[in-house]
């Protein structure tokens, strides 16, 4: 794995661990087991633009998203289809992407998060490649973080 990809993975792992321990009061551990995509999958997408272009994706099932929101917002009284749930997953992706930005090349800007619901899609960026894919397991279930680089556009790294 290239050195930059290693540093990205280390930053993602550290941020995910801190995020879950401090704001969800639980643990998230990396796992080798892939997270299957299904009809109830929720994907939060954070775009990077500027000197480095790409996306960070957080993918989990609706059940996991609901459990994350219940812990994040400290309430059990949530509708699985509510804005509170999607807003939580979006904010989690925002936090991970914001911390990752520190190790990305200077001159990168972040967009605001988008959320896609359902598993019958693929996120495709022309000429892009997944440069890091990490799966995590929590007591609420698994989730995946993918970092996609829009290759051919990132020069001078």
């Amino acid at each position, binding site marked *: 794995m290239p050195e930059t990809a290693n540093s990205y993975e280390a930053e993602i792992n550290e941020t995910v661990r801190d995020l879950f321990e401090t704001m969800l009061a639980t643990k998230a551990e990396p796992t080798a087991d892939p997270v299957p995509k299904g009809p109830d999958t929720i994907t939060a997408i954070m775009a990077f633009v500027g000197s480095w272009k790409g996306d960070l994706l957080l993918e989990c099932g609706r059940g996991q998203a609901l459990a994350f929101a219940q812990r994040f917002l400290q309430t059990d009284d949530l509708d699985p289809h509510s804005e509170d749930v999607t807003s939580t997953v979006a904010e989690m992706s925002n936090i991970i*992407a914001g911390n990752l930005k520190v190790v990305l090349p200077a001159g990168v800007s972040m967009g605001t998060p988008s959320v896609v619901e359902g598993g019958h899609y693929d996120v495709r960026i022309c000429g892009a490649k997944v440069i890091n894919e990490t799966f995590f397991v929590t007591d609420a279930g698994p989730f995946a973080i993918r970092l996609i680089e829009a290759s051919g556009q990132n020069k001078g790294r």
Partner: protein
Amino acid sequence: MQILVVDDSKAMRMIVRRTLRLAGFHVEVKEASSAGEALQNIQSAPVDLVLCDWNMPEMNGLELLQKLRQAGQSVKFGFVTSESSEDMRNAAKEAGALFLITKPFTADGFRSVLQPIIGS
């Protein structure tokens, strides 16, 4: 003491509100879901402190702070953001921000940063 929490994320506004309470601050908390809404709110009903996200659509937190200062508003202002590069910290300080709290955060972190500003 009135605090305005500015964040386009509903979840994060709820978290900041809760974290202030967990940190022991018994303050009145108002919310704005955009920088534009915050600007209007502050101009019509001033608050004592603004806790603002950085990365928001249309107008970001730094632009909000700059607009407030250009309008002669000296309200105390700090950022609560997932990004915290040295460049951002310098830009925030130069624009007049008192602090920059990085997400993820804890109630203890809030307390140590805000205690000197809010008091007990």
